[in-house]
């Protein structure tokens, strides 16, 4: 072996326009992708940027004012907002339960476990996760009918996929000591999980669930657009009837709710990390 030189030889950085330079190929590919996207979409900029469009846009926004703030309608919006919250909460709870139930077969609980169900369960979780809530809701409308029930189930299905995967990761990453100690005593797998693994990962599972709940409130607000209840249903109904004052109230309620949840989660995170 050659002895190391006292000073490592000074190496020049690679040439910028080296044909093998990965960054260049990457940048070129990116530019091609962006160019092809804009070229193939035949976007109607002219229509959007023309004076006519600006005028219709202005008229459209003008119709939002004044928002409809009559007491019965505000009450209706408040009920819609409460329904949205209930949908997101129940959907997240169902998903947490189902996610935990699926995370067990989807994780290798200890070294040397055969974990035969791991691959198929993960495939199922990925499929649940890949289909967005809105598509689930549109599919479920057929069997669950219009209304918040379909939305709740849709949120639950999508979130089950997300949470199941996260739960499985954290179960697999839990420190193995306590579980090993119980297993060495001959305790069965279910009780090993309940008394050794679960208490260790529970805080993490809770924080994942809370995070998803926050996301689901936002998702639940728009699920109604396909007919699945909550604020979104009111929005698409009144927008469809061109009742712009009412639409403005609903949009404001949505914004308020999202901002409120954002602020709450920001405060909670600061409080917890302090």
């Amino acid at each position, binding site marked *: 072996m050659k002895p190391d030189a006292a000073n490592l030889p000074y190496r020049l950085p690679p040439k910028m326009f080296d044909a093998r330079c990965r960054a260049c190929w990457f940048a070129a590919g990116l530019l091609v992708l*962006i160019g092809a996207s804009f070229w*193939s979409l035949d976007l109607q900029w002219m229509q959007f940027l023309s004076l006519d469009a600006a005028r219709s846009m202005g008229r459209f926004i003008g119709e939002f004012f004044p928002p409809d703030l009559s007491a019965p309608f505000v009450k209706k919006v408040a009920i819609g907002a409460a329904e949205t919250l209930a949908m997101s909460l129940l959907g997240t709870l169902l998903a947490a339960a189902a996610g935990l139930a699926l995370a067990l077969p989807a994780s290798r609980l200890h070294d040397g476990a055969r974990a035969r169900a791991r691959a198929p369960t993960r495939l199922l979780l990925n499929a649940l996760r890949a289909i967005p809530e809105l598509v689930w809701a549109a599919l479920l409308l057929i069997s669950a009918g219009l209304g918040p029930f379909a939305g709740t189930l849709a949120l639950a299905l999508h979130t089950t996929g997300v949470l199941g995967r996260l739960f499985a990761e954290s179960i697999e990453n839990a420190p193995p000591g306590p579980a090993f100690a119980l297993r060495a005593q001959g305790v069965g797998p279910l009780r090993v999980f309940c008394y050794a693994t679960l208490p260790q990962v529970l805080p993490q599972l809770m924080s994942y669930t809370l995070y998803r709940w926050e996301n689901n409130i936002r998702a639940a607000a728009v699920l109604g657009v396909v007919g699945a209840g909550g604020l979104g249903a009111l929005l698409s109904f009144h927008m469809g009837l061109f009742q712009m004052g009412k639409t403005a109230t609903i949009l404001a309620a949505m*914004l308020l709710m999202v901002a409120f949840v954002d602020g709450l989660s920001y405060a909670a995170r600061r409080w917890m990390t302090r």
Partner: protein
Amino acid sequence: MNPAATRPELRDPAWLGRVFWLLAALVLLWPLTVATEFRPWVLLEPANLRISGRFIGSFFPPVLNGEFLAMVLRETWRTVAIATAGITLALVIAVPMALLSVRVLSISALPGRMARGPFWCRQVVRWTLMVLRSVPELVWALVFVRVVGLGPTAGVLAIALTYGGMLGKVYAEILESGETQPTETLLRNGSGRLQAFFYGLLPQNAAELSSYTVYRWECAIRSSVVLGFVGAGGLGQQLDVSMKMFNGGEVATMLLVFIALVALADRVSAGLRRGLG
């Protein structure tokens, strides 16, 4: 005698608390199930079961003829293109806004407190970003479909506005979270703000910024499918049409294509992010 008394290993010292909290949770859940009309038995009613059974049964076999597949492929490309164009326009919004709102690049803040003008400028930019991102992209799309008509333009604009808000906020956060010493030194020695950004802030944070952008591109692909449901073109719109016509075979094909597309975007984005470090 019950077995727990003779076998202490079966005793759970915390059972009282566990049972109490379980019951309390069930009592709290009750109003939720009423509010969401949660009636799972509706799914099992014979009439409903027959309809869902027929719909799910029609998933098999998925439609696989050449003409339909070509259409699905074209729409898939449109979905990706809407996401890419949307993210590109989002960058056009996000980068200047992030630069305007970053505190580190403030010259007046160097000696101590920021002057009033720049402070309010930054606050206004931040609020704008907040409003942009707190309107869900679906709502933007609904609005733009009214203005520019059905088609991909509404989808691109919706993604551009929502993701512009998100990217702008996160870019500013990333830029502020890093080491600020080099930037500050540059500014103190008389470099301009852009120079300080390009030579001080950007090299430190480039990897994180680009990896976050790639991650958001992946999210945009997912949401551009959803935007199709309100008429913004792409795979979602075809899915909506097939669903309304109860054409299970077409729905099945498109769902499979969609799952594959999401998995592919997931892989590509994970690979790119690993490469970016």
